[in-house]
């Protein structure tokens, strides 16, 4: 990596990290988490982005060259071949089930039935592999067939391939473009894990009225699973926050949120923060009645993306000094507005919400696919004109905090713990630790793989 690129990378990362931490930095970062605009800017179809890693990367390199003011690029977590290998029923993919230029869409239904809560609560991994996954992964539906074994084998390999693609992409973007990532690793709020891919929203809401204790117990059990999943795929250097999209909270009353959504979600975030990571949370929809809770977490550790339906000015009032917020640029204005409108809108944001820091320019949790390129440029130019706090400040990337296991995290529940395997092996002739370490690593990877299908 050239000295210049390295400097650029550190400048961008330092600015991003300082904004999140509510520390001094030179200007408002341009740092969305999901930059769908970058994905299509260079002419790729949406199908190409999830099926052709080379085209995907080329498009992003082009974007970095054309918009060098952008501080972090974007995240992506869908790799088409993996979804095909398993026949993942919870997604419709561009080019496969949808026209090549339509974005992927999530399909939820009550895959888990109302009387299956105890199965989940008593044995989460067993519930996943025996009950849920055969229903949401079509290829696992034919249990015990040769085809289902091959499908799992292919999926494991596709997962490893995707890991390689993501690693390579990160290195190229860092070393060639000086571009950091907005986040690495992901989880769901336990209530969302239940209400997305397991029970679906409608059924979970009915359960909330009809069997509230079961819903609460399930959320409690999912705290550990979500925390382990998040930590196992996070950035080992702890440079980037861990991502959580928050889906169902906006449909709940404040009382329901306080009882069913927040306590387990907060526990997962506390574990992640204790482990030395920050969180980047998409507060999807209008979170105005809920976001004050983010003040309960340590200051400057949860970057809150305010959606287009939320009031960014109110968010600043409620969260300013507690957590950094991102957002403010209206999606509809980027798509339909004029450059003058965008420029004026962003100027106003910089001079109000941006004042005093703790603010990142973005649209509602993303830059939309259909933003007009000239509007995107107008937004950037406005930040470069009005978004400066203090040009003399050069925020440096933070050193990773020391590794430690947080208090709230229990050992991971797995199908075949080492003790079981050890008993099966009987007398171990050589170095037990060598065998154990690798056994546990693979077991962990397999469970992370399994739990990712809750997303």
């Amino acid at each position: 990596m050239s000295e210049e690129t390295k400097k650029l990378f550190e400048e961008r990362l330092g600015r991003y990290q300082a904004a999140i931490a509510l520390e001094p930095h030179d200007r408002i970062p341009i740092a969305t988490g999901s930059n769908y605009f970058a994905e299509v800017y260079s002419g790729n179809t949406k199908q190409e982005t999830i099926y052709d890693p080379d085209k995907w990367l080329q498009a992003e390199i082009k974007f970095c060259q054309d918009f060098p003011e952008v501080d972090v690029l974007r995240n992506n977590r869908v790799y088409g071949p993996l979804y095909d290998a398993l026949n993942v029923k919870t997604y419709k993919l561009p080019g496969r089930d949808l026209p090549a230029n339509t974005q992927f869409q999530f399909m939820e239904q009550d895959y888990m039935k109302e009387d299956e809560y105890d199965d989940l609560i008593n044995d989460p991994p067993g519930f996943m592999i025996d009950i849920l996954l055969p229903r949401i992964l079509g290829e696992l539906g034919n249990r015990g067939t040769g085809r289902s074994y091959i499908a799992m084998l292919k999926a494991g390999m596709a997962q490893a391939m995707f890991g390689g693609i993501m690693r390579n992409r990160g290195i190229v973007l860092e070393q060639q473009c000086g571009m950091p990532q907005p986040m690495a690793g992901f989880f769901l709020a336990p209530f969302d894990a239940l209400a997305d891919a397991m029970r679906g929203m409608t059924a979970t809401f009915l359960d909330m009225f009809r069997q509230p204790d079961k819903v609460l117990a399930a959320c409690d059990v999912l705290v550990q699973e979500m925390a382990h999943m998040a930590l196992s795929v996070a950035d080992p250097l702890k440079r980037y926050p861990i991502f959580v999209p928050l889906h169902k909270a906006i449909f709940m009353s404040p009382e329901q949120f306080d009882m069913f959504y927040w306590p387990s979600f907060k526990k997962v975030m506390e574990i992640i923060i204790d482990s030395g990571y920050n969180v980047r949370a998409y507060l999807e929809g209008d979170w105005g009645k809920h976001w004050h809770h983010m003040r309960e977490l340590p200051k400057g550790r949860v970057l809150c993306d305010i959606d287009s339906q939320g009031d960014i000015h109110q968010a600043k009032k409620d969260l300013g000094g507690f957590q950094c917020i991102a957002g403010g640029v209206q999606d509809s204005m980027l798509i339909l507005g004029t450059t003058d409108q965008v420029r004026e809108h962003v100027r106003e944001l910089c001079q109000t919400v941006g004042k005093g820091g703790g603010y990142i320019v973005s649209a509602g949790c993303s830059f939309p696919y259909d933003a007009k390129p000239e509007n995107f440029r107008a937004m950037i130019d406005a930040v470069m004109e009005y978004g400066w706090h203090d040009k003399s400040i050069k925020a440096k990337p933070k050193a990773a905090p020391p590794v430690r296991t947080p208090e709230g995290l229990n050992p991971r529940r797995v199908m075949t713990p080492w003790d079981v395997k050890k008993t099966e092996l009987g007398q171990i002739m050589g170095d037990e630790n060598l065998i154990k370490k690798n056994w546990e690593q693979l077991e962990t990877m397999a469970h992370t793989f399994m739990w990712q299908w809750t997303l």
Partner: protein
Amino acid sequence: MGDLAQALANLEEKKVYQLIDQKITEGANPLDIIQECNDGMVRVGELFSEQKYFISQLIYSAEILKQVMKKLDPLLSGIQADSAGGGKIIIGTVKGDIHDIGKNIVITLLKGSGFDVIDLGVDVPTEKFVESVKESGAKVLGLSALLNFTYPVMKEVVDAINAAGLRDKVKIIIGGTPINEQVREYAGADYYAKDAVAGVNICKEIYA
């Protein structure tokens, strides 16, 4: 408001079922029972407008109503449903978008207010909206979406209604998460509904 309507408005599921069973045993006219349930649903809609209820409560009320209708269905065969009085509303999620939660909530509330709803489902091709307006003679067309790439699709539907010479016969309401006044103007729709209850109120205005 009757006991039944009140129980439904309060989301007292078991009590609603008890009252229904009791009324059925007493030989009450099923259409009167439905009317009382509709009163309860209207109250639910009002509580939603007042931000005392949220989507979760709307979904629960719709579920209770669904169970009630299951109980009443056997009694309704042979009785001419009193739908002739209700204005016709066509509604669907536009092409490319497969989300239906918002649309279904609007439908429940519309039915509760006595409208005759023609639900075209999700991912509805533009031509299907046009055909439906032509065939049904409905005065209201509702377009729903969750995803913001649907702006041009909404415009396409409005343009197609224009091209078919139907524009002065139907009012077009658009609604859904990414919709605002700017989108309404762009698409050329008549109204944008900021939530389900607002949508129902616009329909009432149009048919008033």
